[in-house]
């Protein structure tokens, strides 16, 4: 295992890079302007929002090249002293290094495309401007998350994206399901944030610092590293929808589809992966924590795949697919030396999942917001561009060479097998099987939506979406096709990320030869796809879900009972406890006080009656008190 350099050094930001803060300030200003100007900005607001994100992207590119020109590619910008109490010193500062630079490009790039897409998608919504304000708020918070130079600054961005996510899931707040889903997302995230908060507290109590530079150079080790690592992992699970906090993510699909694409697929939900990748020095110091990360990833990727096969709601299938794909990233980021592969998958996934979500949005747009795949079918002819884009995303996610997903997923399976002993075999096989199931449910989705017979409800006239929507889709489709190959070319991404994540590990002997493994993977994927084709492509699809199904399908349709479990273990007992406590407070504590009052005053009723002449009785008690004071003081004086 190759460790990072002993010391992490950050150089102050100079020259072009001293304008780093603008990256955040532009979208933040956009959000503020849109929210504060009320109705006045309704016309130009959405365009301003797009411009702000677009400008941030341009800046991101400029800064990227500026960073590339440096020898020490970790740039720190101190803005001001944020919290300063005794030893607890937290600067407001930014850290720009290859990892954050990569994220900046992903966030602003994909973010800009989705802004543009939303111009078309949200065109008829009366609160379009508010939507764009929230989108800008999200971009600003997400950039703070990846650019902050301390865990506490990250935390601000972390909850900021949670807030934006809440606002956008509940954008159609008058729908009760949307409001409930938003609340669920926020609460699940807060459970994760509990971990992140405690991790920061442990850092301060044990290491006396919460900045990246301070923590990573403190020589953190042993139990402290494991404790911090596991607590950070809890935070990551909340934000990234990983087991056991995955249930909020599919519900979050109640929000508008561009939101699902941007926040709940391409960027925010991958923040957990960022957190773990960023904390590489901590996890390297704790193999136990790393093992737990891989196990969580493996469990989640299976859960996501299995449930993804059972749903008929196109967005929910994509959502569980996201859960599952992030499981792959967690698996990779927990494997020593495979951090760069995790980020590679994160980037390719950002392209292909955003592409598929936007295409799904295009389908919904055409079908009057229908999401039931059993009511689609045969759309290939009516929406050729959408079909083409979705197909590209599909080929990328199932991992067909040379599409993007092939390069990243194949590497993850390989890295998992290369772990020593049984662990490697188990994790590798899980990842391999996951690839097969992914191919199954994605093929099912493709077939049910675009191929086969029309199963539309009455009065549907699907049409291709306007170019303001298809153009971003096409660009993302291109990304889905070529990004994987370009990023691994000559180890480009791995070398670029080496300063943050450590160099790529080259294992001397592979458990299974890469070529054999690649062929095996393709075989499994082909098997999954074929299975779906024979089940859904060769015979008519029913317009209502079949009832006579296996227990596994029943379970999968109910999210493998995780929601039921939450409800019976947490929600219901919580409600009873709350009701009980309200009773205790009214009858018990307050009752005791009343009883006491009754005892002393010979009945609280009589006591109250004595208080009807407020002024008089109060004056009397004041007078009594004053007398008491005077007598007491006199007594003391005379007693001397």
């Amino acid at each position, binding site marked *: 295992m190759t460790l990072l350099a002993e010391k992490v050094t950050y150089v102050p930001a100079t020259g072009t890079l001293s304008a780093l803060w603008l990256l955040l300030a532009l979208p933040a200003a956009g959000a503020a302007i849109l929210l504060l100007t009320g109705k006045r900005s309704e016309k130009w607001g959405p365009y301003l929002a797009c411009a702000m994100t677009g400008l941030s992207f341009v800046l991101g590119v400029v800064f990227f090249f500026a960073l590339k020109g440096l020898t020490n590619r970790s740039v720190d910008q101190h803005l001001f002293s944020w919290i300063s109490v005794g030893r*607890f010193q937290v600067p407001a500062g930014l850290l720009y290094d290859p990892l954050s630079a990569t994220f900046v490009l992903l966030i602003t790039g994909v973010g800009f495309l989705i802004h543009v897409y939303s111009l078309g998608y949200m065109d008829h919504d009366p609160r379009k401007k508010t939507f764009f304000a929230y989108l800008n708020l999200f971009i600003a918070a997400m950039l703070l998350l990846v650019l902050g130079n301390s865990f506490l600054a990250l935390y*601000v961005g972390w909850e900021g994206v949670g807030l934006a996510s809440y606002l956008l899931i509940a954008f159609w707040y008058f729908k009760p399901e949307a409001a409930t889903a938003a609340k669920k997302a926020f609460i699940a995230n807060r459970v994760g944030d509990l971990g992140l908060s405690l991790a920061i507290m442990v850092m301060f109590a*044990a290491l006396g610092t919460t900045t990246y530079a301070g923590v990573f*150079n403190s020589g953190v080790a042993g139990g402290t590293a494991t404790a911090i690592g596991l607590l950070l992992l809890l935070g990551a699970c909340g934000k990234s929808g990983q087991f056991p906090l995955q249930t909020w993510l599919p519900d979050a699909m109640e929000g508008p589809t561009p939101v699902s694409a941007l926040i709940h697929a391409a960027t925010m939900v991958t923040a957990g992966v960022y957190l773990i990748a960023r904390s590489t020095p901590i996890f390297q110091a704790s193999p136990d924590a790393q093992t737990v990360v891989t196990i969580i990833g493996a469990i989640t990727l299976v859960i996501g795949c299995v449930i993804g096969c059972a749903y008929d709601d196109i967005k929910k299938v994509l959502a569980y697919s996201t859960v599952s794909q992030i499981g792959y990233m967690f698996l990779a980021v927990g494997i020593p030396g495979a951090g760069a592969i995790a980020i590679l998958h994160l980037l390719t996934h950002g392209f292909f999942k955003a592409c598929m979500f936007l295409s799904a949005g295009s389908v919904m747009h055409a079908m009057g917001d229908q999401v039931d795949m059993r009511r689609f079918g045969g759309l290939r002819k009516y929406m050729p561009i959408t079909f083409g884009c979705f197909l590209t995303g599909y080929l990328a996610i199932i991992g067909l060479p040379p599409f993007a997903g092939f390069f990243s997923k194949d590497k993850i399976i390989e890295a998992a097998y290369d772990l020593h002993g049984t662990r490697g075999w188990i994790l590798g096989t899980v990842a391999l099987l996951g690839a097969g199931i992914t191919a199954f449910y994605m093929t099912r989705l493709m077939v049910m939506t675009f191929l086969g017979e029309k199963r539309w409800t009455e009065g549907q006239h699907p049409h291709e979406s306007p170019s303001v929507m298809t153009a971003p889709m096409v660009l993302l489709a291109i990304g889905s096709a070529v990004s994987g190959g370009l990023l691994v070319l000559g180890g480009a991404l791995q070398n670029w990320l080496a300063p943050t994540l450590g160099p790529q590990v080259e294992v001397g002997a592979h458990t299974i030869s890469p070529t054999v493994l690649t062929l095996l993977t393709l075989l499994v994927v082909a098997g999954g796809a074929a299975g779906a084709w024979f089940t859904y492509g060769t015979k008519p699809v029913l317009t209502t879900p079949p009832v006579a199904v296996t227990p596994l399908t029943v379970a999968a349709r109910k999210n493998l009972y995780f929601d039921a479990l939450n409800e019976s273990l947490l929600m219901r007992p919580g409600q009873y406890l709350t009701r009980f406590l309200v009773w205790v407070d009214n009858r018990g504590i307050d009752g005791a006080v009343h009883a006491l009052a009754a005892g002393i005053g010979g009945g609280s009723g009589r006591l109250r009656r004595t208080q009807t002449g407020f002024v008089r009785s109060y004056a009397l008690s004041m007078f009594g*008190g004053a007398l008491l004071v005077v007598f007491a003081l006199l007594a003391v*004086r005379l007693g001397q």
Partner: protein
Amino acid sequence: MSPSLTLIGVVPLVGALVVALLPQGKDVLAKQVALATSLVVLVLTLVLCVNFDPQGDRFQFVQSYDWIRAFGVHYAVGVDGIALVLVALIAVLVPVVLLASWDDVEALTEVGTEGSDAPAAKRKSVRSFFALLLVLETMMIGVFAATDLFLFYVFFEAMLIPMYFLIGSYGGPRRSYAAVKFLLYSLVGGLLMLAAVIGLYVQSAKQGPGTFSFEALTQLNLSHTTQAWLFLGFFIAFAIKAPLFPFHTWLPDAGAEAPTGGAVLLVGVLDKVGTFGFLRYCLPLFPWAAREFAPYVIALSVIGVIYGALLAMGQKDLKRLVSYTSVAHFGFIGMGCFAFTTQAGTGAVLYMVNHGLSTGALFMVIGFLINRGRSRFISDYSGIAKVAPTLAALFFVSGLSSLALPGLSTFISEFLVLVGTFERYTVAAVVATTGIILAALYILLAYQRTMQGALSSAHAALKDLSGREVAALAPLIALMILLGFYPKPVTDIINPAVKVTMQEVGAQDPAPTDVAKPAAESK
């Protein structure tokens, strides 16, 4: 000798007199005079803050005159950093409250009092209402500015009078019950404190000339038993005032029945006298007892955090809900006061300020809602965001502040309290941290039930906030955001005072456990 503090204290009293003496029918003028007075106080207080030197003497702007020479009672005032920020909080909240309550008294007369336990409503006096608020301001400033224990006690009790009338005359249907309950609780606490004050005087008289001067009293040598008893006398009085669990049951009644303006000042400022008293009197005067009792106080505080949050979730009445959230927040503050680290202490003081802003805003926005919907019950509202988007937005932001969202000022104080407590009482801090989940639940549940979902037809014509109402809330929200990103001006004032308090109680911050020498901090 600087008369500035006395001046700040007297201005509202003069304003109150003028307002009270205005001829009948001059209600609008009365309101304008009251607002102008409170703005003068605000300006004077800001000048005071600018002239305060955090690195200078502990007490500044001091003024001391003999009052009752026979007992060594002085009229002595002065502020340290802790008292100063609380006086500043008062100065900010009073004009805001006046603006928010502009038409409340008239509205009260219109509503009538169905199901009331008090005599049928007559037309209430507008002038008295505004005069009472100004008198209350004087009392509140006095209680924080007093550096003579006797003077403190006088203000501590006198403060009850205007609040009693505000609740009793201008409150909701069960106002008499609530007002009496509030008064009885406070008087019981006050009585215990009075006993302890006298006890302390007796001790000082044994060791030299009897005195009530705070600085002289901190020099006393007290036996452990004496410390324990006197500590308890003060502590229970302050714990009732704060209120800490299990002394809290008066608060939901008082908070719910008080008129909006009264509720804001009651929960936002009056209650802070309790936690301020912990830091100012319980810790420095009885360091041994404070250290002995600290674990128990921490335990009560943690129970309060969880208990208050759970009860808030179970409330059907919006104002009771906010009152119970305050029980949870006071748990955090109590924990911060007794964790004996500079982070927790500064966090606690900052929490007092932030809680005043956020709970003040929450009470106000709920008051606006109740004025429109004529009901305090959550179940009577649904989908209000549709017709009153601004009201909903400001409700939401105030709620976020209550759940301590990072980026808002409450986060800084809550995190400082938690991180400071974690160093010494790890388990307590971990349990209290789960409060962040509960806080999200009670706020978002209330928001969802009232603002989201389908609009109820009864409220289809509900009006959004007026310019005046937005103007009242805007300064609070601006401060929350500003102090969330740049709390330094306030923490710089608080820090030295907390440091002194920690020295007096004989506590030092624990060193990082995994680091031999202090870790090098990157700048």
